[in-house]
């Protein structure tokens, strides 16, 4: 299964195992809980059922649009400490442009259209939901020039 949603950590080497077969280019993106000074952890909530379907849908969309030879998405939910891996996208293609663009495109979809919500837990114990950023919407909109993409 090319898309996985799980609470456990993942090993990027296992996620990409075999993915380069027949390809010339393999791009990976790993998102990490960033140390911004007083962050202790992230908590990620998701929409069981819809999440898996959405990741598979976006991955298949990227594969078709960019002619990928393969792709994988793993996204965690639950609590993750600073420094832990949150999620990963891997795209394989014959040429580097397709692999880079597909990974970039998938990240834009995941940021703004996959049903995950992040909550930041500070070292003092306070917590706050992360607000969506206009620049993530703008980044996603880059791909929509010329033809409509996916849900409204």
């Amino acid at each position, binding site marked *: 299964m090319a898309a996985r949603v799980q609470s456990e950590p993942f090993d990027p080497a296992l996620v990409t195992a075999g993915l380069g077969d027949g390809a010339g280019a393999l791009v990976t993106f790993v998102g990490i809980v960033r140390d911004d000074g007083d962050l202790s952890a992230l908590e990620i909530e998701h*929409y069981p059922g819809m999440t898996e379907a959405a990741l598979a849908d976006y991955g298949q969309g990227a594969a078709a649009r960019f002619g990928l030879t393969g792709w994988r998405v793993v996204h965690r939910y639950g609590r993750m400490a600073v420094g832990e891996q949150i*999620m990963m996208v891997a795209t394989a293609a014959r040429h580097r442009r397709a692999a880079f663009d597909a990974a970039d495109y998938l990240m834009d979809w995941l940021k703004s259209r*996959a049903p995950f*919500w*992040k909550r930041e837990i500070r070292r003092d114990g306070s917590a706050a*939901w992360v607000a969506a950023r206009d620049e993530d919407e703008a980044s996603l909109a880059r791909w929509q020039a010329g033809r409509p993409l996916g849900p*409204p």
Partner: protein
Amino acid sequence: MAIEVLYFAWVRERVGLPRERIETGAATIRDLLAELALRSPGHAAALEDHAALRCAIDQKLTGLDAPLAGVREVAIFPPMTGG
């Protein structure tokens, strides 16, 4: 008709429930939000600002004006922050 309504993130926290089953005759999600907002002060606080809400019908993202006929599950949530 009976619809399962799911809430996520701060919408869930304000409503005070992760999900509830309701009977409604609402034609669209926007109409449904207006109905739900009358259920409690928590519902009102969660659902009053439509611009801050996103939704899915039967696990597919959609707009607030999507029709509800034949729908089983509606989810209401803030803008997503994955990745």
